[in-house]
């Protein structure tokens, strides 16, 4: 070997240099052959740190749960179009309110937080609040739609882990006035009743869910309602309910030429700003969703049917001298004249016997066909979701035809009765009702001729006669100059399967002005009691004057000019 030759002197020198430290030689030479151990250790450490890095990457790509929570809340922010009446008065609008939420995971001291919140919102259930705040939920609504002062008070508390989201709240400035027409929305601003629901069903909801409607200014949606007339109707119905101590009342004002509903309500009603009221018993919309045996108002249809059949005219005679006995039932008249009556007299005396005889002319099938044509036996097609389907006998027999002729045995909604009545007075065309503005031309496209114009003219005569003539039952509805005409109906309500003698459903079906009718006004009063000092509670005593009051107050607003005769006398009364 060549190398040792050079190394040897150094080695010698080294040995001489360090005699005192022989250990060094040993130590340095004892290099363990453990490089592999280092490699293993380094690999292990790299592996573990790689796992940690991988975990960090995984967690970095976890979709942030909070972002999804915010996205869901943004949808709530979506606005709805305002609802306005036919004159542009606001019926429903969006206002911005703050809603309180909690992120329980982030609440440090649930006990303190719930105590502080209870000081501002004392009606929160303490146990519920504490349990939820101490849970580890990520998001929780505590209270939707706070007032600004509540929001400020909560801000002042400085509780961590809670926050506010601005939400749109639906506000109905008129309160309950048009509640049954507008309907209401749920807490997420989705329409769940009335025209609000109709709007959503028309695709507005889909638009909102697709995110297109977020915060965009939307064109207000006009309804056919006239807020002024709506208010008058509701006001008069409320007064009537008090005056006659009834359990309910309702009414509708309908444009006979366009089918537009100008006003419609039912009492007791509810405030759409407080939607839970709507769930209370009795607060349903009886006018469109309530089914009633309309009673004598149906005689208008029976008369029209007889006239339209061509078999009878206004002077046709019907023997009402004797009650009818059929199937163990005795049918007699309330205001019995016990003689032969003309068709006119059958109408104004409201003769049950006479009406039954009128129905006989067309036969059972003809009767059913006529009422079907008048839209009284099928569900009324309209925008409002709350519409009831009428009931009729499964199989029409003679007795059914007889009772239906004077308004028993078929249950309809007051609204569809008014719609059918409009066809009787407007020249004989049935127009589907609408809660949206509609012109006469559009209405005519949808209209169906259901009775002849001649029949319609005769019916106008009969309606007017019933109010104008001293013998008529509708005298109390007379308003000078407005040519009111109408038919009363006092129906005994069914109680426990039998007709009650004390509980009545009263209605007055009217139209004005009778020479060229513009509006049908129907008012019903459910279970009225006689006014103090009076013995009867018939429709002529309560429903008719209520209609009169409505027309007296609303006619001018509806731009119906009073016709006070050719003399042009100074009007001394002021309505």
């Amino acid at each position: 070997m060549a190398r040792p030759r050079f190394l040897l002197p150094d080695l010698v020198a080294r040995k001489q240099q360090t005699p005192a430290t022989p250990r060094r030689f040993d130590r340095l030479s004892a290099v363990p052959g453990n490089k592999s151990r280092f490699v293993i250790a380094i690999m292990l450490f790299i592996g573990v740190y790689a796992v940690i890095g991988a975990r960090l990457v995984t967690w970095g790509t976890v979709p942030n749960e909070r972002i999804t929570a915010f996205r869901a809340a943004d949808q709530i922010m979506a606005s709805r179009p305002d609802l306005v009446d036919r004159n542009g008065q606001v019926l429903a609008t969006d206002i911005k309110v703050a809603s309180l939420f909690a992120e329980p995971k982030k609440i440090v001291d649930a006990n303190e937080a719930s105590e502080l919140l209870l000081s501002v919102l004392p009606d929160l259930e303490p146990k519920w609040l504490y349990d939820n705040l101490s849970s580890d939920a990520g998001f929780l609504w505590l209270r939707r739609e706070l007032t600004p002062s509540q929001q400020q008070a909560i801000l002042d508390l400085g509780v961590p882990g809670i926050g506010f989201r601005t939400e749109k709240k639906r506000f109905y400035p008129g309160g309950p006035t048009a509640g049954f027409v507008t309907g209401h929305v749920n807490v997420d601003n989705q329409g769940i009743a009335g025209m609000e629901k109709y709007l959503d069903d028309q695709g507005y909801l889909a638009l909102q869910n697709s995110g297109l409607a977020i915060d965009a200014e939307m064109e207000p949606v006009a309804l056919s309602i006239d807020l002024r007339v709506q208010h008058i109707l509701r006001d008069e119905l409320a007064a009537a309910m008090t005056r006659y101590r009834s359990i309910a009342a309702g009414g509708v004002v309908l444009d006979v030429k366009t089918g537009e509903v100008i006003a419609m309500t039912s009492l007791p009603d509810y405030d759409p700003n407080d939607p839970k009221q709507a769930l209370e018993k009795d607060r349903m919309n009886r006018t469109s969703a309530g089914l009633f045996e309309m009673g004598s108002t149906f005689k208008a249809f029976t008369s029209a049917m007889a006239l339209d059949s061509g078999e009878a005219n206004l002077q046709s005679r019907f023997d009402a001298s004797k009650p009818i006995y059929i199937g163990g039932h005795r049918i007699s008249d309330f205001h019995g004249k016990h003689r032969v009556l003309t068709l006119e007299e059958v109408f104004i005396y409201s003769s049950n016997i006479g009406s039954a005889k009128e129905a006989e002319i067309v036969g059972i099938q003809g009767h059913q066909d006529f009422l079907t044509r008048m839209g009284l036996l099928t569900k009324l097609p309209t925008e409002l979701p709350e519409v009831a389907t009428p009931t009729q006998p499964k199989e029409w027999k003679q007795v059914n035809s007889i009772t239906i002729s004077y308004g028993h045995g078929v249950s309809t909604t007051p609204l569809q009765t008014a719609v059918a009545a409009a066809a009787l007075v407007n020249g004989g065309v049935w127009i589907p009702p609408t809660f949206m503005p509609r012109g006469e031309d559009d209405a005519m496209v949808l209209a169906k001729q259901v009775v002849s114009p001649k029949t319609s003219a005769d019916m106008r005569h009969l309606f007017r006669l019933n109010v104008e003539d001293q013998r008529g039952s509708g005298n109390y509805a007379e308003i000078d100059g407005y040519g009111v005409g109408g038919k009363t109906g006092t129906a005994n309500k069914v109680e426990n399967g039998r007709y009650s003698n004390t509980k009545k459903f009263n209605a007055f079906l009217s139209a004005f002005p009778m020479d060229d009718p513009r509006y049908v006004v129907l008012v019903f009063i459910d279970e009225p009691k006689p006014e103090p000092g009076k013995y009867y509670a018939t429709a002529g005593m309560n429903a008719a004057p209520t209609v009169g009051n409505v027309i007296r107050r609303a006619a001018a607003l509806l731009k119906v000019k009073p016709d006070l005769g050719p003399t042009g006398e100074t009007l001394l009364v002021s309505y």
Partner: protein
Amino acid sequence: MSESGSKIVKVSDWWRGLDHWLVGAFLMLLVGGAVLSFAASPPVAERIGLQPFHFVERHLFFLIPSALVLFATSLLTPRGVRRAAIIILAASLVLMVLTLFIGSEIKGARRWLDFGLMNIQPSEFMKPAFVVVCAFFFAENARRTEIPGNLCALVLLLITVALLVAQPDLGQTMLVAATWGGLFFMAGMPWLWIAVLAAIGLVGAFFAYEVFDHVASRIDRFFTGEGDNYQTDTAREAILNGGWLGQGPGEGTVKRLLPDSHTDFAFAVIAEEFGIITCMILALLFAFIVMRGLSVALAQRDPFVRLSISGLVFVFGLQSIINMAVNLQLLPAKGMTLPFISYGGSSMIAISISAGFVLALTRRRPENRSYTDRLMERTALVHGV
């Protein structure tokens, strides 16, 4: 200049000899820990009714002694390191015994000694000293049979473990035992012994699981995911809330719910405020220190130096790994501070001693590269030992 002459070197030589990569990494951690303490510490201070910046101030205050200790220990020669380690170890063990009798009990464990101004946790100081002394024993064992190095190391381990279990401090026990095992492994012991020791370690772990209820429940909760995982779940929430870039300094919200946000769960708070990327940099820094330490150790001639460096970076690496893994739900919850980042005076100074030792031992010394040494190696090659 030879190590036999003095235990301290000249500053210019010192600076030239330092491993500048490691110096840079340690200083980054030291400074980074101070900055990050602004995120992690205020919520805890507020919660326990102190000034918001109480722990931050204390952390910054401890930077001064830490830096001094780091500097001072890095001046030592390997022999100086050994002597210092022996002294520190002896003192720590005595203090740990004392702790059992006069220590202040916090959360059911006696780990701290109250010295008036500050509490001291002797077991923290014990760790680097223990590693160095054990490395010495193992190195002796490899060289000379009259000192039974392995036996001494084993006895030292048993004493230390006994003292730690008595506190009880199972985290430190595990750490010390694992490091000891690491040293044993690195010392080139036969695989059979390693297997035997690993088996003993497993039995010990099982024993801990059986004897200590809180250990068993923690492990059960980790594996089943059932029960109160509040701390780790909140830590996860904080990390997810931070995302890649974090919520920004002071913007963390989940951190307020983390009871130990300034110590064991500082990592999660850093993620929430500074982002996962910052956490990755932090993990990378620790990994770098371990890798650099081990590769520098491998180049060392002296088995004592080589083993000491390995052992010291093991402690460093294991501590950081356990802490991060617990924060990331990779391991059952175990209290373990993140070196230089977590708050804790004893921990910081002890870590500085560790780091100083590492710097001192990795310093390029004359005997590692002198002509003489190279000759010695060749001689060994030629003549055998």
